[in-house]
């Protein structure tokens, strides 16, 4: 999966602007960054610095105006919409600030969701879901719906959902942003474990210096440029 020199993510000369009415608002300005396999990278920076945009480009839910984003040897900016959907399902695990669990589904069903896009048998799916929930320590809350869980527990279910397909990279956007200190520490422990024990490459956007401490590398973005 890794590119040359064990690089898993390679962002080359990427530019990205948004348009508000007809006014162009540059967000990323000629950004280049390489992330080696097994890295735990934290992107920090003030609001509007473009860190979430960079994360979205790496995760394949947004496209650069210029430049290329190569993940696991694939230039994802060149993929069609449906190829990109397929690619995300296989290679990216998402952790969101507000967990983004589907409220009508149980923890089990939420974790199972990405597996519906795979060809695994019913039995294999079941094993994967149980494993992922065990990994995050929520085997006993499998049949609870998100509304019956605490914020920390919800985020752990979301992490289980992110890792259940064993994706190439994990992207986390402010994973502790909505949590109290204790829960935030637990989530960071969990991400740390996934990185160390399971060798998951993680790219995390955060405001929280305590969260960033767990990362191997911290990069700062300011006004669309890496500093």
């Amino acid at each position, binding site marked *: 999966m890794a590119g040359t020199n064990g690089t898993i993510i390679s962002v080359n000369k990427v530019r990205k602007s948004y348009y508000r009415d007809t006014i162009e608002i540059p967000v990323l300005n000629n950004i280049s960054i390489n992330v080696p396999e097994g890295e735990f990278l934290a992107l920090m920076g003030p609001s509007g610095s473009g860190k979430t945009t960079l994360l*979205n480009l790496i995760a394949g*839910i*947004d496209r650069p105006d210029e430049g290329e984003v190569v993940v696991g040897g694939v230039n994802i900016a060149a993929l069609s919409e449906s190829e990109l959907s397929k690619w*995300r399902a296989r290679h990216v695990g998402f952790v969101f600030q*507000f967990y983004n669990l589907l*409220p009508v589904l149980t923890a089990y*069903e939420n974790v199972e*969701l990405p597996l519906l896009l795979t060809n695994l048998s019913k039995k294999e799916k079941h094993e994967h879901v149980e494993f992922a929930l065990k990994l995050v320590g929520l085997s006993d809350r499998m049949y609870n719906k998100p509304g019956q869980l605490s914020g920390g527990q919800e985020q752990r279910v979301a992490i289980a959902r992110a890792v259940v397909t064993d994706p190439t990279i994990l992207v986390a956007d402010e994973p502790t942003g909505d949590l109290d200190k204790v829960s935030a520490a637990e989530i960071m422990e969990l991400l740390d474990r996934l990185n160390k024990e399971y060798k998951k490459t993680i790219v995390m956007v955060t405001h929280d210096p305590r969260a960033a401490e767990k990362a191997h590398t911290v990069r700062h973005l300011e006004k669309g440029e890496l500093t």
Partner: protein
Amino acid sequence: MKIPLKYTFRNLQSRRLTTALTILGITLVVFVFAAVLMMAHGVEKTLVATGSEENILISRKASNGEISSIIDGETVNIILAMNQVARTPAGAPFATKDVATVINLPKTDYVGITNVTVRGVSPDAFALRPMVKIVEGRAFQWGAREIIIGNSIARRILNARVGGTIKIGGDQWTIVGRFDAEGCGFDSEIWGDVLQLTDALGRSNAFSTLTLKLRSPQEFDSFKEAFESDARLQQFVPKTERQFFEEQSETMALFIRVLGIFITVIFSAGAVIGAMITMYGAVANRTVEIGTLRALGFRRRSVLSAYLIESLMIALIGGIVGVVLASFLQFFSISTINFDSFAEIEFSFALSTGIIISSLMFAVVMGFVGGFLPAFRAARLNIVSALRAS
């Protein structure tokens, strides 16, 4: 790969009130739609049941009903002399010369009068139409100013009871019996002796129609051929009795269908808009969920079908409830003036498999039309902005 149905289903359950109101809108439209079709079908069924496949009815070609048909005694004799006509054991032709006319009578249920068919029949009429059975009193006597009334007449017409009298053609006729005709058109008629009636109406030796039995139903084609090749019979046309009465329902059934469907299609716009608002609401409330599903790798078409299925589910539930409610209408009968006979006829709402299928299809179409734009919008959402909607 599809977004699981349980997601769609549980979302419907999670916003019960909105879902229920949308279902109600569709239920009402489907109820009216089914009711109209059941009404038209009821008219047809009643009139089709009036005619027998084995009886042949001869009427004047240019007439559009029994009342406007005239057939003179001489022509009747020519027809009855034909080979194919069945004979009674006594050797007489097995037939009834009917005279049908319409009189005005006051109704029981409200102040007003209505048109009622009075039918004069020959003695063989009861054998030709075995569904007509006396249930109260007795049959009229031949040669007397006596009549019997159908069940529906007894219900609808003021003072129509055994022992009472009704004025026809200037004379008072005594009601001596009441008959049941198994819910067919005869139930809405008054019967008497044809000769007495032609006399009272001043139409001696002229009848409305001739109904006869053939020696064998298979002989209809040869009978018709002989009939059509006879120069004296060119103004008349033989049909099976069933076909004749079926045609008597055509205008009415068509009118009910066209008017009813026109009205329900207009109503349906309301239900479609209701479904659309509900589904747009669903998409707006679940924008982040849609963004999440798309980020996880679910394709646009999966999102499109999930939301479309949600709308179709709402519509189908509404459709089923509407049809179930409409099915209770079968216990009701109503009466109306039939355009073809100018006489009031009583009939029941009648449900058929075809009506059930059409009603459910109609519901599904409403769900599709109402759900498509919101589902399309959901599928087209930009992932990044959808996720940011939180």
